[in-house]
């Protein structure tokens, strides 16, 4: 696939996507309060409103995990092991507070215990933000109490959070969401590729919000003025685990296709809808993260799947790839039904069960994708 040359704005985004803690560590060195989040349901707006710097903490999955191998069970996601190891090693010491989200409850338990034993003395203060994501009234009071507790906890570490500060933070993140949605449109028209898009979106989790908005805006205007990428199959990617890397996208590009959307907060679902400016700001933030952040905790299935069904129905989507690596314990139960639904819609489906983080898995995936795309008529021919 032919790729246009990208300018300084994209280089900035790609740099921070690769060097994930650089900006936050610099802010820490400059005396700012830095609050880490593990998982995408911890609202950045609360951290921003407290005058602190938010940073998403992610796992380095290549990391050796000698201590985690003693304590953490192999059937837990590799992310749990590597983040545990990072905590024990003192990687999070620069944070003023670390907030874990509900999907990381087990990591929370393991860190709690190793800290209690005195074997992870460099862990910063940490807390769990237990947002339940079933879409039903029964969990409302619990969720409302949890976000109020989190506001207090953050306020204790940084500045006290008030409504005016929340409104300002919402304004900032909503304008970033608008930019990210524009980026999504450029993906659909073929001006921005999937691998590039993942970096441009993902950088937002690691950069200061203002600098990110600037860099993203420049990249978008540059890309919009540039040529479209050469035509190839448009792919919708469904993933069983959050994709904090571009491996799957690269493999799909190498096979001559392009991911134009993925059901993942690391990609096309980073923005979602704006946070409402009509409600009480804290309520609006709660609603947004409760109902519009895709995690495996969303229920009922219809709520979990509305977005992917709309995307699958897009006429410009040529194929659907479902990435279900060995760590999956959830999406596999939906897989036969989803694959059938997509096929009934007339969309070719490829299931990938190998691990894109391992060399062996990557070559297995490559050998499955090649014949899959070759078997789909249309666009690829036109590209040659």
């Amino acid at each position, binding site marked *: 696939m032919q790729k246009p040359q990208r300018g300084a704005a994209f280089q900035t985004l790609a740099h921070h996507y690769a060097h994930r803690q650089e900006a936050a560590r610099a802010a820490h060195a400059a005396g700012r309060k830095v609050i880490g989040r593990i998982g995408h349901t911890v609202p950045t707006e609360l951290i921003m409103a407290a005058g602190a710097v938010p940073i998403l903490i992610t796992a380095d999955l290549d990391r050796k995990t000698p201590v985690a191998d003693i304590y*953490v*069970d192999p*059937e837990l996601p590799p992310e749990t092991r590597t983040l545990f190891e990072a905590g024990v090693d003192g990687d999070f010491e620069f944070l003023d507070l670390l907030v874990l989200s509900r999907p990381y409850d087990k990591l*929370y338990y393991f860190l709690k*215990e190793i800290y209690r034993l005195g074997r992870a003395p460099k862990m910063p203060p940490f807390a769990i933000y237990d947002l*339940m994501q079933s879409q039903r009234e029964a969990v409302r009071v*619990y969720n409302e*109490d949890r976000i109020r507790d989190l506001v207090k906890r953050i306020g204790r570490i940084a500045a006290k959070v008030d409504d005016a500060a929340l409104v300002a933070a919402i304004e900032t993140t909503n304008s970033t969401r608008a930019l990210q949605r524009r980026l999504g449109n450029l993906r659909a028209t073929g001006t921005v590729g999937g691998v590039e898009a993942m970096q441009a979106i993902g950088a937002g989790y690691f950069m200061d919000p203002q600098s990110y908005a600037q860099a993203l805006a420049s990249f978008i205007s540059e890309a919009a003025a540039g040529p479209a990428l050469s035509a190839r199959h448009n792919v919708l990617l469904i993933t069983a685990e959050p994709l904090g890397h571009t491996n799957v996208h690269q493999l799909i590009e190498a096979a001559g296709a392009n991911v134009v959307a993925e059901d993942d907060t690391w990609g096309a679902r980073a923005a979602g809808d704006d946070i409402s400016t009509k409600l009480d700001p804290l309520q609006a933030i709660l609603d947004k993260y409760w109902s519009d952040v895709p995690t495996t905790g969303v229920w009922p299935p219809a709520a979990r799947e509305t977005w992917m069904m709309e995307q699958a129905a897009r006429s410009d989507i040529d194929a659907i790839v479902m990435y279900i690596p060995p760590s999956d314990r959830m999406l*596999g139960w939906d897989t036969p039904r989803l694959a059938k639904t997509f096929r009934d819609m007339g969309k070719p489906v490829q299931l990938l069960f190998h691990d894109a983080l391992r060399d062996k898995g990557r070559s297995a995936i490559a050998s499955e994708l090649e014949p899959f795309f070759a078997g789909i008529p249309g666009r690829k021919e036109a590209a040659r």
Partner: protein
Amino acid sequence: MSAPTDAAKAREEAKRKHESLTQLKVSHTLRAYQREWFEGLRKDVFQGGQPYAVVGALVPHEILEALDIPFITDVWYSGLVAAKRQSGYYSNFLDKCGYHRNLSRYAALTLAVMLDEENPDKPWGGLPMPSLLCTSINERSAEVMSAISGAPFIPIEQPVLDRPTPEWWKMSRWQWEDLDGDYRIDALAAQYQDLIAAAEKVAGKKLDYDRLREIINRVNAQEEYFHEIRTIIETAPKLPARLGEVMGQVMGIQWHRGTEWAYQQARAFRDEIKHRADNQMWACPNEQIRLMYVGQGLWQNLDFFTEFEEKYGAVFVRSNYLSIASDGYIRYGGRDPIRALASRYVTMSEQMHIPGLGSAWAIEEARTHRVDGGLSIAGWWGVKTVNQALEEAGIPVLDFPVDAVDGNTWDEQKMRALVSNFIEQRVLPSKAKKNIYA
């Protein structure tokens, strides 16, 4: 697939062996009741079409009990399939349906039996479609059952234990509002209202809260008998009853907890254990080594626990099942029965493996049961931390590589060799060392 006939043969053989190992009278009365109960279920539900529910192990069965809704528990049913040596067949069947290997089969064999239209030898003739489903929200196979049956699914979202208390069992009976956190109890109680509404529709009547309170108290009383049994096992000079039989008895009663039968059976169980201990009727009179069993039940082969009596005088004295019955279920002072229930289940089972909670408990159990070593089944999150804590406390642990219900992973000879080596190379030397210092 030739599995059913092979399975039938293996089943016959296992049954003969099992019967020759049975020491307890209550094992016979339990089996008789199970047969009778299942016969009733078959008549009323499987043939008569009476609506029934499929539920998880950690949901408030007491509510269904109080509404007279028959129910089966997914993991219990999976255990049943395993005991009939059909778990291998049904695990493969799920593969064929497109459910990949890494998905837990522990609860999902229920779904497999429901989906299977080929096997002529289904356990008890298979399962009709349920009218209500209630499990943990993470049990996606229940969502699939809901989709194929059209029955409503009430998911339970357990609130995270944000303030873990390692020695939880010291608080669980009376101080549960503090132990579990009132806000966590509220969270579950609110979800129970959804379950009650759906269950009332199925039952066609309103929940009687007085009756529910009675049931909760009857469960307390039943678990008190289990507590007595555990105390006898801890303090008697030798083991009065084999672990496989104890586990079978405990679970057989627990699945019917809240009923008058369960209460009476628990009492008879206590009476028999007490009688055996008073009269020095030991499971293995030549008892030399006491082992604990950590983790899920080895349901495909409970008789495995007796294999090491003859050669080593090694007995298994303890499992999670009896001990959690005593430490996990009892809730006193439940004026509000829904809150008492919510507290009973809000950390149920997780307290056995949440790091810190699981290890503190295992060490306490090892101490009170005077064990020399532990056998710990893999495939259970949290178990490594528990094993590590036991090892640090001087209890050697064998990490046993087998899925609790998957018949495909069971290799009798290999398993026997693993345990023998463990006893010879780790337990005996560690015991000898302790004896020197003692």
